[in-house]
């Protein structure tokens, strides 16, 4: 397709080379630097100028970091928070979007409007009142304190509803004639057709829960219940630097793996209507 420039002349190759070098330096090298850094003993990390490859390889840092910070526990906590956040959000928003799109109850538009109105609020405006509500409900130190507030996601209700709106009525009519009720129509017809949008919403729900910091910081005062982000932040000041680096690498691996596995869905989801990663 025609773009700004054409041809693959000298200028093209120059720009390509410069971009390759800049991108690698800006986005890949810092991460390689950390990967390598975790293999260096603290004394080597403190020296100037720094060594590029570790002079003494200490692969034990990754194991030591795991034990020193008890990372297994925090991985499990984060996993529970992220998977639960996904499951609860799906249970809340899928039926709601279906009802608003296909069953069209009285005042349905008012409800959609009230949900969309919450998007006007900056995410942090509800920090204090939601925190107090969680205290009232005794949901502090409980993963449910993350799951339910995260499920009130008006944008995702809207995205699903918009997708369901495009499913032709004739399909649903045919199911109804075959004797399907509203529930079987949702499970047998709507959900299978909606796999692309459900995949996008699901991946973003899990990623958002894994990356979140401020909510787990408030919800889990008990150190044993914390997620990786909150725990790493707490450990950072008094952890030997090589172990901290190893911990940071380990905490990122699941998200990097998820990205490599679902790259196509994630990049497509970005443009699916302002879903911000």
């Amino acid at each position, binding site marked *: 397709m*025609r*773009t*700004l*420039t054409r041809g*693959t002349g000298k200028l*093209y190759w120059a*720009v390509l080379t410069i*971009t*390759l070098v800049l*991108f690698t330096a800006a*986005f890949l090298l810092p*991460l390689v630097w*950390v990967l390598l*850094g975790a293999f260096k003993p603290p004394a080597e990390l403190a*020296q*100037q*100028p*720094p060594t590029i490859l570790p002079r003494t390889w200490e692969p034990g840092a990754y194991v030591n970091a795991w034990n020193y910070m008890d990372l297994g526990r925090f991985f499990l906590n984060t996993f529970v928070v992220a998977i639960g956040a996904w499951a609860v959000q799906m249970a*809340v*928003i899928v*039926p*709601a979007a279906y*009802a*608003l799109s296909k069953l*069209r*109850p009285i005042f349905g538009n008012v409800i959609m409007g009230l949900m*969309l109105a*919450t*998007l*006007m*609020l*900056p995410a942090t405006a*509800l*920090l*204090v*009142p*939601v925190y*107090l*509500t969680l205290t009232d409900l005794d949901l502090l130190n409980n993963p449910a304190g993350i799951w*339910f507030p995260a*499920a*009130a996601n*008006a944008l995702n209700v809207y995205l699903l509803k918009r997708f369901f709106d495009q499913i032709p009525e004739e399909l649903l009519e045919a199911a109804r004639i075959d004797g399907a009720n*509203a529930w079987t129509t*949702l499970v047998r017809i709507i959900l299978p057709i909606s796999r692309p949008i459900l995949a996008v919403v699901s991946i973003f729900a899990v*990623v958002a829960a894994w*990356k979140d*910091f401020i909510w787990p910081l408030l919800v889990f005062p008990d150190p044993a219940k914390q997620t990786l*982000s909150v725990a790493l*932040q707490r450990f*950072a000041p008094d952890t030997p630097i090589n172990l*901290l680096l190893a911990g940071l690498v380990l905490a*990122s691996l699941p*998200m*990097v793996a998820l*990205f490599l596995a679902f790259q196509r869905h994630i*990049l497509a989801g970005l*443009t699916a*209507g302002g879903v911000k*990663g």
Partner: protein
Amino acid sequence: MRRHVTAYGFLSLALVVFAIFSWWPIVRGIVLSFQQVNFVTSPDWVGWENFERLFADPLFVVAWRNTLFFTILALVIGFGVPFLTAVVLNELRHAKGYFRLLVYLPVMLPPVVTALLWKWFYDPGPGLFNSVLRGLGLPTSQWLDSSSTSMISLVLVITWANMGSATLIYLAALQTIPGELYEAADLDGAGILKKVWHVTIPQTKFVILMLLLLQVVATMQIFTEPFVMTGGGPEESTVTVLLLLYRYAFYYNDFGTASALSLILFGALAVFSFLYLKITRKADA
């Protein structure tokens, strides 16, 4: 009738969750702004006292000044970069997958991880940045440790961490520009800059505007990076509105004043959020 009952059955869970965790907290946040809350006695109405306490707090002005400075810096540095990157990437016909993978990789990292990594890079002694600068014979910087460079250091982190989404959204928008427009510009003898100005930017102005509004709303609420990297220092140079809000709520347990501050922040951002919603919904229709 039965249809409505069934529909409300499907809606019930969402209605409960939105009511408890979204709609009621909105009302409660407004109410709290005018109350004194402690967890022992029932809350007292205090009128505008919480707002007066905020206005009397020297940090209130500092936090707003810092937040606005941060937002403007983030716009100046962070806003043009993803657009330019996308324009360049759109011209390149090699290594497309590699570029997309790399630019989005930081977006996948948990912000706390990014913040702690960059804190290590910024270390004025053996840190990566000063080591590279020394190696090239260039002057070094105190980065986060000096109140004159702390804010710009934070802006660099969030630009690096977040530019992937914006770049890829722009890239998708650029690919919808009809090739004939460029051909027509070529016939008129337009150079690259002219084509960017007369074709590329007008054709993507809706996306540019949308991302501009989103970025303002997000940067005004900056919390994780200053909280993890500087704690608001040095000399309060990185105390943002949200950091101040956090202090009121969770250091001083003054939830009333913290709510009053949320309400002010909401007011400041309402214009941007409202415009954003209007534009995106119009584009959908």
